[in-house]
């Protein structure tokens, strides 16, 4: 208990408590009408209430399907292109300028085009998630794979590893910390992007729930999906963090 409530932790909780207190204060002392700013207790009880309803769960599932599909495709594409670009100078010469051009491009601007090409269903949203999550994963993989300690590769080659095996036996494991860092960034981006895409146009999902609430000025119901997606982001991030520290247990500073 003493360890959990260390001064550092208390110091960290302080601003969060302060913000919630300020929020509560604004409502209690009548600075903000509850219609515009529902009190925190009300928002969280509404959140718990919603979480057990079937309709809200369906929204979560719709969002999660798009999130995971888009993210998974991004991981597969990002890792393979990143490793290929690090391994082959020819592929690198092609990939590098394309990535240079596409990485800083605001992918969300492509969304209208995706809607036209892939329709308003899952396809366009999954593609948008993939497009956004792809580059951090690709770039970290490329970075990790091209900075693998040369002498690790030499050691493996001297032990009789064939050139074709080096990729899987040395380069990928050695690049794993960088790859997982990229995945972590990509995952949070996926959460954000899927939600925004659903807000811009959708018939279901958490983002859609927020927009529906906004149209009818239901402030409480606007907070609920927003908090849900943020919690999902935090939980997924923590899960990936746990996976990361398991996979990288041998690496220093993992």
């Amino acid at each position, binding site marked *: 208990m003493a360890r959990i409530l260390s001064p550092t932790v208390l110091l960290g909780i302080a601003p969060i408590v302060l913000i919630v207190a300020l929020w509560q204060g604004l409502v209690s002392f009548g600075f903000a009408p509850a219609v515009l700013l529902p009190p925190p207790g009300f928002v969280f009880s509404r959140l718990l209430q919603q979480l057990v309803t079937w309709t809200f769960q369906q929204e979560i599932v719709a969002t999660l399907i798009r999130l995971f599909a888009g993210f998974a495709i991004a991981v597969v594409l990002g890792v393979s292109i990143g490793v290929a670009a690090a391994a082959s100078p020819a592929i690198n010469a092609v990939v590098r300028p394309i990535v240079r051009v596409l990485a800083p491009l605001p992918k969300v601007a492509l969304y209208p085009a995706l809607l036209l090409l892939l329709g308003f269903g899952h396809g366009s949203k999954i593609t948008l998630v993939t497009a956004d999550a792809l580059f951090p994963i690709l770039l970290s993989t490329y970075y990790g794979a091209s900075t693998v300690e040369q002498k*690790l590769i030499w050691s493996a080659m001297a*032990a*009789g590893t064939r050139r074709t095996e080096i990729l899987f036996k040395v380069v990928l494991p050695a690049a794993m910390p960088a790859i997982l860092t990229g995945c972590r960034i990509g995952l949070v981006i996926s959460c954000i992007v899927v939600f925004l895409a659903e807000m811009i146009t959708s018939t279901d999902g958490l983002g859609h729930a927020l927009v529906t609430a906004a149209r009818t000025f239901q402030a409480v119901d606007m907070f609920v999906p927003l908090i849900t997606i943020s919690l999902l982001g935090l939980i997924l991030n923590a899960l990936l963090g746990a996976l990361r520290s398991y996979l990288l247990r041998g*690496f220093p500073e993992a």
Partner: protein
Amino acid sequence: MTAVPARSSEWVRPVTLPEPASAIIEIDRVSQVFQTSARKDHVALSDISLTIEEGAFVSILGPSGCGKSTLLYIVGGFVSPTSGAAKMKGQVITGPGPDRGPVFQEFALFPWKTVLGNVMYGPRQQGVRAAEAEAQSRALIEMVGLKGYENFYPKELSGGMKQRVALARTLAYHPEVLLMDEPFGALDAHTRTRLQNDLLNIWERDRKTVLFVTHSVDEAVFLSDKVVMMSKSPGRIRAVIDIDLPRPRRRTELLLDPRYQKHVVDIERMFDESDEAGPSL
């Protein structure tokens, strides 16, 4: 403890018998040129020829930047020479192979594998069955003095322990030649001395050929049968010195041995001369 051999007996017993030693590695007129920038070439090695006999402990000694590590990498097959060739048992070396095992200053252990996993990597790669590879590896780990650390990750070990693991990992696939690239260069003086002793003890058992790169004069003299002195810019062989000291060698005895002292002083004088010739940067 054996006493310091009396002076008379030293002359009676020839130390390194000129056995019918066969050449295991031949380096034939090897040059290595790196392009450092668009305008300038750096000649790391210039026309090096050297023959290394089977079972010999040969050190390559020189200042940093003389290309001694590059020469080792060429023998390892990690780097191809710009011209000339290195041969292993008469075959031109075209790439790395398990007949030549490297031990690097940076240890280069696989961080995602435990000590046991690292040592087993080579035998498994050679197709040795898991159980057998494990038994051999455990024995090797014990030999390098790390019994009890089999399931540790490299990050949990000190520098000296990491280098012991690296040595065991290389010995595990039975290379005919050990290529040691300043293996003790990153260690503190005390650990360094202990590892030198342990390396000699391990080497005494099967007397594998060792090519040992170092910039420490007394390390080279203490360990080797032969010291190849290199000078830099361009990297050339300056002298090859036979170290006719008896084996098994003990550090405490050698330090008092005038022949050891003479070798060290002679070599250092030669380096001083080349330094006085002017800064060769």
